[in-house]
């Protein structure tokens, strides 16, 4: 349970980041999820990414909805405020919080039930508003906390633990997000941290809504034969199309990249991501091409991963609102409100 404190053993040899903090400083409470849950791997990747980016832990706001995935913000960054909203409504909490204070990093953790069933509307509209946040969908195709019902991301033909076959088409968060105008769309697999950590870093540095759909198998209710979201199935059909290398502003690009196969993209803060393409035919900056590419691989039942679409020039919520740089947390009260009131009332006399 989250209130059981982890043993704080001092490892003097742990590496520190620019703030002098070790990865341990980015951890949270003990996970209460099932042993082997994909979500715990994602939590570990988040910790590694935040540590690697030298983010001050308390300058992060963690948010989630309801479900197994939504428990995880309690398991990382104990020095950051977190909020567990009602089911499917985290995007609106994130939107309001972000509107009030643009100075923080926002990490939203959701699940396939939370984002694609009960919360599909809020998920879609947060994308439309291009709220500057990292949005993870920990996608296992199943409702865990209520014991194994299909979610809206369950594939056609997938078999539930109880033996039912799903016949309704899935909602694909990646295609959905791209069609809604999402400015950063990626898919990853909880079992591939090498790919996930740089994606999270890039998502955190992207100005706008960065959605990563992370296939995260449910070991208890959806890891059996016949499930298309099991570890075995995911590994078999896993197709990493693009690897992402995240390069901080201060670092030089040292690796030699093969032209045509690599694509550097500069983020607004000066950092760079270099996309190493396995499939050279995919252009992640071309929306129409991304659709076609994803459709082809979906038909082949392949789970394509990587940064699949990016638009770094999109205007976020605050750019559209033309908000002042200072957070809106302070009340704004005029020095001479009485005079303002007199001026306003003149037109009502």
């Amino acid at each position, binding site marked *: 349970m989250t209130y059981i404190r982890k043993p704080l053993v001092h490892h003097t040899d742990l590496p520190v980041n620019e703030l002098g903090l070790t990865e341990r400083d980015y951890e949270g409470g003990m996970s209460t999820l099932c042993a082997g849950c994909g979500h715990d791997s994602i939590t570990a990747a988040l910790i590694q990414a935040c540590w690697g980016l030298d983010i001050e832990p308390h300058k992060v706001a963690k948010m989630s909805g309801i479900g197994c995935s939504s428990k995880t913000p309690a398991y990382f960054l104990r020095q950051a405020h977190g909020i567990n*909203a009602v089911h499917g409504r985290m995007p609106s909490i994130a939107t309001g919080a972000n509107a009030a204070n643009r100075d923080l990093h926002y990490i939203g953790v959701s699940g396939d039930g939370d984002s694609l069933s009960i919360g599909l509307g809020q998920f*879609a509209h947060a994308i439309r508003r291009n709220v500057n946040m990292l949005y993870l969908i920990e996608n296992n195709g199943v409702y865990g906390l209520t014991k194994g019902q299909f979610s809206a991301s369950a594939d056609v033909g997938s078999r539930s633990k109880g033996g039912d076959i799903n016949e309704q088409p899935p909602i694909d968060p990646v295609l959905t997000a791209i069609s809604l105008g999402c400015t950063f769309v990626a898919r990853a697999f909880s079992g591939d941290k090498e790919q996930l950590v740089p994606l999270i870093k890039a998502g955190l540095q992207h100005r706008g809504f960065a959605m990563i759909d992370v296939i995260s198998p449910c070991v208890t209710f959806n890891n059996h034969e016949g499930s298309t979201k099991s570890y075995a199935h995911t590994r078999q059909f896993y197709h990493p199309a693009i690897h992402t290398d995240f390069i901080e502003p201060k670092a030089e690009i040292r690796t030699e990249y093969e032209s045509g196969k690599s694509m550097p993209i500069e983020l607004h803060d000066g950092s760079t991501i270099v996309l190493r393409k396995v499939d050279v035919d995919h252009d992640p900056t071309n929306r129409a091409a991304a659709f076609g590419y994803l459709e082809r691989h979906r038909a082949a039942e392949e789970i394509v991963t990587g940064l699949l679409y990016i638009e770094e020039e999109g205007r976020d919520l605050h750019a559209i609102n033309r908000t002042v740089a200072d957070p809106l947390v*302070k009340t704004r009260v005029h020095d001479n409100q009485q005079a303002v009131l007199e001026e306003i009332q003149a037109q009502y006399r």
Partner: protein
Amino acid sequence: MSGRVNDFTLKIATVNGTGSASANALLTKAVFRMGVPVMGKNYFPSNIQGLPTWYEIRVTELGYLTRSGHVDLMVAMNPASFAKDHAEVTPGGYLLYDNTWPRVHDLSRDDINIIGVPLANMVNHHFVDAHTRLLMKNVAYVGALAGLLDLDMEVIEGLLQETFGESKAKLVEANMQAVNLGYTYVREHVECPLELRVERRDLTDGHIIIDGNTTAALGAMFAGATVGAWYPLTPSTGVMNAFSNLCDRYRTTGEGEREFAVIQAEDELAAIGMVLGAGWMGARAFTPTSGPGISLMNEFVGFGYYTEIPAVIFDVQRVGPSTGMPTRTQQGDLMACAYAGHGDTRHICLYPADPAEAFELSARAFDLAEHFQTPVFVLSDLDIGMNEWMVPALSWDRDYRPDRGKVLDAEQLDRLSGPFQRYMDPDGDGIPLRTLPGVHPAGAFFTRGSGHSKQGTYTEDAAEYQEVMDRLARKFETARRHVPAPAIEYAYASSGHDGRQRPTACAIVSLGSCDLAVREARKALKAGGTELDYCRIRAFPFTDEVERFLAEHETLFVVEQNRDAQCKGMLLMETDVARDKLVSILHYNGLPITSTHI
């Protein structure tokens, strides 16, 4: 009906979407500018164009700014509603109609005076463009009424100039031509002025004419609110329109950058979510809505209550249940707001009586929300929110400082020994300490709508859960001593040694927009020899003053605008009053309550 100077009601029946609203506003403002107190109420359809709409103007030197229940002069411009309008005129009254076309003959009453003015004919001769003709017909009846009621033509011209400004001088000219058409015709063909007429007074100095949605928005701006989220919903839409306009002017930097954020949400679930997100982050945030929105917000309101996040929700009530009548007024959400959310939840509610009080209580709501770290409702209604009320000019305390509540800053958090514990009760008032995200690492905690202990950690422990729920109840008790006291008027001045008022046997208890009708009814009853004390509740939880008022009277008439006596129900549930002492007077047809009803 007697001939009355500055004391009559006029009602204008038109077709909506034809521009009659501005003509009616012009009439109302002209009376106001002539120094005579005036009430204007709009009964409009939930429709854009083509359905019947009415506007009621009461000219009232004595200051009875509520519906009289009579129609002394009907301007019947809409053939579709002519029969109904014709029948509604109080005996001895007048009916003005457009006699360009013949009247239906079997609709004639010999107990009223009929005045025909060829409005369409005159306007069609004078103006060429079809749309202009349609608009100017309304302006022409303003002219006719000016002639009949002795309205000051200079005042009317001045108002037109203010409306259109110098840049649109041609419009002023065209409008004045239409006014003169109507004016000249009645002056030539009818004995003017009528027995009903307006005489100049100086009774409106220090007053304004304004709607309650605008004043609610003003209150939000003056309290320093920075985030507003909303979903358009009649009759609450005007709140956010006004807030945006005000902030564009007063909360925008020279570089055009906004010191506020207004977000049009995809629905009310998201609107309240955004408000709670912003409130959690430490901003003053609010959402205006009406009944259907309140229904949708329930889950999040309960979340806000249990997680203790400030939020201000304006419920501009309309007729329910369901979609109901979106353009009609009611006090039907009293219980829905007071107990919004599943499980044990109770919320602070404020009940303004008019636009002036909507300003005051709107600002107050933000202080209460942050002081008590909880959602606060401001319940006005369509009548207050959308009608133009004459109220005393608004004033503002120049020493006002927002009450941000018990929020620990970075320095205080620096001195904190041990982990921050969110839901303790350090001062015994039920109000915990709060921290805001991004301020200090020591302030971090996890906000959750699931069971939590007083330390803020997840719990399913019976005692830990109950401890927090009991403290929330204590917090609500503290709020009872902080919310606005009722406005109480005793019929008799204090007597005896104790200085306490001598209560009447019977009394009235009411709230919100019933106020003016109650006041007028009390005066009428007094004239008939019956004196009633009056308690107007301004907030929930009910304060001790309410409890005392209930105790010291034998019979209490509870006046409210809903079918199920929701205020009475709350009084029975929340106070010690005996059931048989309370007698309901209910009004719930969608129109504002009248004094004659009471």
